[in-house]
């Protein structure tokens, strides 16, 4: 849930990057962190294993500027993608305002993508959210790899409802800011609707 502070004139929103293990969620945040002006970002926190797999979450606070005299701040989180960290994923989804689903384009990761998307749907429902009614963007990542499936195929399997989607190569940053802008916009539009 967004937090509106009339006293300090700030809007705070929470965006969660979801997706299967190794799909590139942490890489998305690292790219945003690397390319953002120091005054617009806070420290990036990564709670990771020794092998750099996300253990609990990554966190990156960003300020986007003002809207109607309110400072807009976005808190970006990633979940741990590995299947057995489901309890942690549920915790991180609490209070979410918008979700980015990062899919791994590699053909052999298709099942993992579908499983993770289903898991997202279930975990959101448990908290009373409906994925089809909330700000949601899909990113087809790792487009640079030779074994990437055609986008049409990914779309058919992962995006039957026609949500906003982008192709990306998080490793080089391609598509990363497009994805972030799209989800931030959807979150702000939702804020406008719900008020």
């Amino acid at each position, binding site marked *: 849930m967004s*937090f*509106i502070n009339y006293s300090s004139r700030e809007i705070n929103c929470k965006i969660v990057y979801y997706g299967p293990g190794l799909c590139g969620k942490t890489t998305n945040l690292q790219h945003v962190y690397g390319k953002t002006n120091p005054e617009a970002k806070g420290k990036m926190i990564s709670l990771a294993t020794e092998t750099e797999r996300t253990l609990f979450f990554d966190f990156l606070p960003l300020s986007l500027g003002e809207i109607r005299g*309110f400072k807009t701040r976005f808190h970006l989180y990633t979940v741990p993608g590995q299947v057995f960290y489901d309890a942690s994923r549920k915790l991180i989804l609490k209070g979410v305002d918008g979700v980015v689903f990062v899919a791994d384009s590699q053909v052999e990761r298709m099942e993992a993508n579908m499983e993770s998307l289903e898991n997202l749907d279930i975990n959101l429902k448990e908290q009373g959210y409906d994925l089809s009614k909330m700000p949601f963007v899909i990113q087809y990542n790792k487009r640079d790899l030779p074994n990437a499936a055609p986008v049409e195929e990914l779309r058919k399997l992962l995006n039957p409802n026609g949500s906003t989607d982008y192709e990306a190569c998080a490793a080089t940053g391609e598509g990363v800011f497009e994805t972030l802008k799209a989800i931030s916009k959807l979150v702000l539009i939702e804020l406008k609707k719900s*008020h």
Partner: protein
Amino acid sequence: MSNPQLVMYDEEAKQISAIIDRLTKEANAKVVFVVDKNGQLISSSGETAGLDTTSLASLTAGNIAATGGLAKLIGEKEFSILFHEGEKDNLHISIIAQRVILVVIFGSQSSLGLVRLRVKKVSEELAKIFESLARKAEAEAESGDSPFAEITDDDIDNLFN
């Protein structure tokens, strides 16, 4: 949606700030801050200069979420107080009215006993404020007038230019 929107107004912000300023003094604490369960900082007091309060807020909420998950696994509703002891500084974390998290950082000039006592005293005061805030936000949401209804697509686009 499941949990109600958190909203803060001037009046309550001042009240909360006064209460935690007092707590900082009476508990001989270094820093006191209040965070919502989603990790957003609500208010802070004490020696916060040079302290990354945004990160502290997010990690505190993660900590409470993780221990809350542990509590459920063993059949508890939640652990309402957490204490972390360091070499120099200590952290006392408590949940207020099941909604927000109160964090006290203190060193050797204070003690766990004193902090517990003072935290207990202000908890009810804070709980009352957050309950009234929740009611106010609900009433506001129903009445439907808010500055955000006026946001235009251009306003949103401008953020990204």
